[in-house]
């Protein structure tokens, strides 16, 4: 238990000490809210879909959790390159505990990040009508964070260095985000895109969070929860397995 705790704590300390990352974590979501929220706002309204900031905010919160947690998982590559990974790999503890500690640490950072972005959304005019559902929103944020930290860890366990990282960003993380319904409603989209969106786990994160915050849902909360729980469990198992197989 101590092992999980110390690895969790390490992730938190590292994030808190990285000033550039903290600044970046404010800037990006704010940019999305301004550019998309206000840029497309009037079009969205004219199309009869209501206030775009209201619709977009849960998507941007989910996006910041997605990016932060993937980065937290990918940090394994960083540790491998700078050698610290070896220190944890020769320690007399099952590697699965190391992986769990790291993942929970990264996920905690991502959830905190999500809450900061939630604050930013409120600051630019987002209003949530359903305060009693905040614990549900929190649940979706946690599930999303754990899921994608585990995915990041799994990828980092098989990628030898940062060269592969660009591929992961362009061919995995970006499509996961842009095709998830974070930016647009999933009704009335072409069939092919709908299939992709249905296969994208982030769609269920966005949908669940959107319901918890503004009461709008596409899949329904039970399905969102079921899909996320299943995919998260699978990611933890695969990530734990790959991490424990690392050779350096």
């Amino acid at each position, binding site marked *: 238990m*101590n*092992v999980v*705790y*110390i690895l969790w704590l*390490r992730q938190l*300390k*590292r994030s808190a*000490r*990285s000033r550039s990352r903290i600044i970046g974590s404010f800037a990006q979501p704010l940019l999305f809210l301004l550019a998309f929220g206000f840029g497309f706002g009037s079009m969205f309204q004219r199309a009869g879909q209501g206030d775009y900031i209201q619709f977009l905010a849960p998507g941007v919160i989910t996006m910041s959790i997605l990016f932060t947690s993937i980065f937290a998982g990918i940090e394994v590559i960083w540790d*491998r*390159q*700078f*050698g*610290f990974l*070896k*220190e*944890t*790999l*020769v*320690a*007399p*503890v*099952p590697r699965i505990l190391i992986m769990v500690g790291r993942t929970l640490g990264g996920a905690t950072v991502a959830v905190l990040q999500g809450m900061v972005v939630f604050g930013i959304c409120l600051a630019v005019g987002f209003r949530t009508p359903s305060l009693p559902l905040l614990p549900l929103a929190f649940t979706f944020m946690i599930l999303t964070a754990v899921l994608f930290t585990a995915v990041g860890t799994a990828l980092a366990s098989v990628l030898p*260095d*940062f060269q592969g990282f660009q591929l992961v960003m362009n061919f995995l993380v970006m499509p996961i985000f842009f095709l998830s319904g974070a930016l647009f409603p999933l009704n009335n989209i072409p069939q092919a895109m709908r299939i992709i969106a249905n296969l994208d786990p982030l769609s269920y994160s966005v949908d669940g969070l959107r319901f918890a915050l503004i009461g709008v849902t596409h899949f329904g909360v039970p399905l969102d929860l079921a899909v996320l729980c299943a995919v998260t469990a699978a990611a933890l198992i695969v990530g734990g397995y790959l991490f424990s197989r690392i*050779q*350096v």
Partner: protein
Amino acid sequence: MIRAQELVKKFGDFTAVDNIAFDVAKGEIFAFLGPNGAGKTTTIKMLTTLLRPTSGSVSLDGLDPVTHQTAARKQFGIVFQDPSVDDELTAYENMDFHGILYSVPRKLRQERIEALLKLFELWDRRKDQVKQFSGGMRRRLEIARSLLHTPKIIFLDEPTLGLDPQTRNQLWNHIKKLNEEEHVTVFLTTHYMEEAERVAHRIAIIDHGKIIAQGTPGELKAQTNTETLEQAFLALTGSTIREEEASGLDKMRTFGKAFRRVK
């Protein structure tokens, strides 16, 4: 204490370690010497559970690191060839992290961290992040850390690389003392032959993945008719310079440089 039998490690077609065998007795200081790329680090990685052998067997105090990973890992402390401290953490946090990983009880942990950091003259800097440390200070921290959980075996993979003579001297004195007083078994690699000659009870020389000579420093010199271990080493391994593949850190540095250039 440490035994390898018919040990082989292949990376694709390349045989890094080619059927080697050795036996290190309890309380012995054993030096594993060889030119760059000879297979020293690969062997240490197999002994310390970081790599799985392609074939053959190793044992640490009777435990097989492949099948009894966790138990085998408790037996040793290691100073890696490349740095392995966390730059973002302070010296004390790095030590504390290690102590918790090796389940050293809190009170003992605090005492030992203080004693070791004082011994390696890092106590005054314990609250500084390691990224502010010089190469020598990092090295001292890693050595202090490897001793924190009082291991029975210590692996030192080129521990004195980049250290000044004062620190080197102090390090070896400390290692010898530990070995004499607490009978810690030491397995070391180094490129400084005079260091090996000074501290090692027994030496194995590895080249192209094979052990080509084994014995006390005296035996190796007698066998090659030479005056110093360095001459004996050159007589056995020849004087061609070896190319080694870039390590992870070297690649990282290149990556960093390229990155800065792009910006």
